[in-house]
């Protein structure tokens, strides 16, 4: 039986890479975090007010936008990647910018993936909170526009969980960043694309090492979301 020994060996090597903070592995992790964090920040800046506005204003076509956002939550990453690829390719409308195969293109693709998640979940949370706060805030003489910061702040713990969910999606997906980033060593190679490549090459140690880091990261994000939610429930009732 060669397989168990192979995996055992790879696992041992992977742990060594992680513990020794191997430079190649470290660079890939840092780049991954930089891209995903930037994407989540950009997406949040757009999606939080957008979700809140969708919760507060009822206008013709609103239902369509809500359904579209909900549907886009499950957008296959490769489709998002393909769309951004077409937009950024030489012949595309934004080809002039020369962004294809750069980290910026990867950020854009992840924003496209994450924005619907944050916007749709924000809408749900703010809608519930508005049902509770609406009369009181109106009694204060607030218009809906002035209510948005109050609602976003008072929903803060729920929204942090929403943003972490977005970060989970951004850091774990492989299809979109592979298409628009191109998996160029040292430039656009992130954890997920590196795992795919190294597995194909048979370099299981590096692939597994990256897998361990990625798994730990996702676990940490989920633990943070859980702890924030629990402490909010205890402290704020």
């Amino acid at each position, binding site marked *: 039986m060669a397989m168990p020994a192979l995996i055992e060996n790879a696992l041992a090597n992977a742990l060594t890479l992680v513990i020794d903070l191997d430079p190649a592995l470290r660079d890939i992790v840092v780049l991954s975090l930089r891209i995903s964090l930037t994407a989540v920040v950009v997406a949040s800046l757009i999606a939080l007010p957008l979700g809140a506005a969708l919760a507060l204003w009822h206008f013709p076509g609103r239902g369509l936008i809500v359904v579209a956002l909900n549907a886009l939550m499950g957008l296959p990453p490769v489709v998002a990647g393909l769309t951004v690829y077409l937009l950024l390719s030489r012949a595309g409308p934004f080809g002039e910018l020369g962004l294809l195969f750069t980290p910026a293109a990867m950020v854009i693709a992840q924003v496209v993936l994450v924005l619907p998640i944050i916007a749709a979940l924000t809408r749900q949370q703010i809608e519930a909170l508005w049902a509770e706060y609406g*009369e*009181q805030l109106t009694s204060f003489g607030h218009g809906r526009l002035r209510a948005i910061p109050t609602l976003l702040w008072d929903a803060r713990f729920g929204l942090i969980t929403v943003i972490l969910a977005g970060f989970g999606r951004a850091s774990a997906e492989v299809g979109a960043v592979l298409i628009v980033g191109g998996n160029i060593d040292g430039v656009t190679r992130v954890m997920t694309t590196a795992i795919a490549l190294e597995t194909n090459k048979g370099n299981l140690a590096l692939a597994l090492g990256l897998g361990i880091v990625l798994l730990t990261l996702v676990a940490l994000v989920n633990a943070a979301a859980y702890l924030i939610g629990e402490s909010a429930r205890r402290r704020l009732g």
Partner: protein
Amino acid sequence: MNTMATPCHTAPALTLDRVSFTHRGQRLLGEISLRLAGPGKTLVMGPNGAGKSLLLRLCHGLLQPTAGRVHWTTPAPHRPPRQAMVFQRPVLLRRSALANLTYALATIGTPFSQRRRRAWDALERFGLTTIAQRPARVLSGGEQQRLALARAWLLEPQVLFLDEPTSALDPAAIKAVEDAVNEFNHQGIRIVMTSHDLHQARRLADNVVFLSGGQLIEHTPAERFFASPDTRQAQAFIQGELIW
């Protein structure tokens, strides 16, 4: 309690001119024509579903009537009076008790440097200093309602609406709310309050607006309402009969 900084002597008058409210083809209230003038305490009474809360919301401007007009006569013309409302279940923000008060002060444009001090004054006035830093939403029902009253007081209203403010409270907390309502009124604040509790209405009311089935049945001075009401429905209500 200290006296308030700026007591208002001229009470604004509220006029409802053939107001009705229809929701999904069903008329829930009206037509109602009503004038609330003078500095006193008006109790809006009636059985469940009579439209008491709805009337209060129309008066406060939370809802717009589907027909008719709600308008104010104030010393400063063309400007509605400063108003506040206390709800049956107090709506408190997910922040500390103190932060709930400074938030209210921000809404009326109180300078930042004065907010904390004024909020503390209000906490003292309503006996809430010990819970200043506690999250507002884990306070007891009585404390929450007192905090809501403190918040309303900071808004310096000329008119205060209260929608069944004591229906979920124990006797001690009910007394605290009623004392506060009387104190508000002594400061010159017009009170409009709904209640289905006859004893409470007897204790507080200067005049009574009696509703049943979305209709205004009568608007009478309190003494007369409780001694010999003008209408058979009000008589039945006072004697504890069911109104159909």
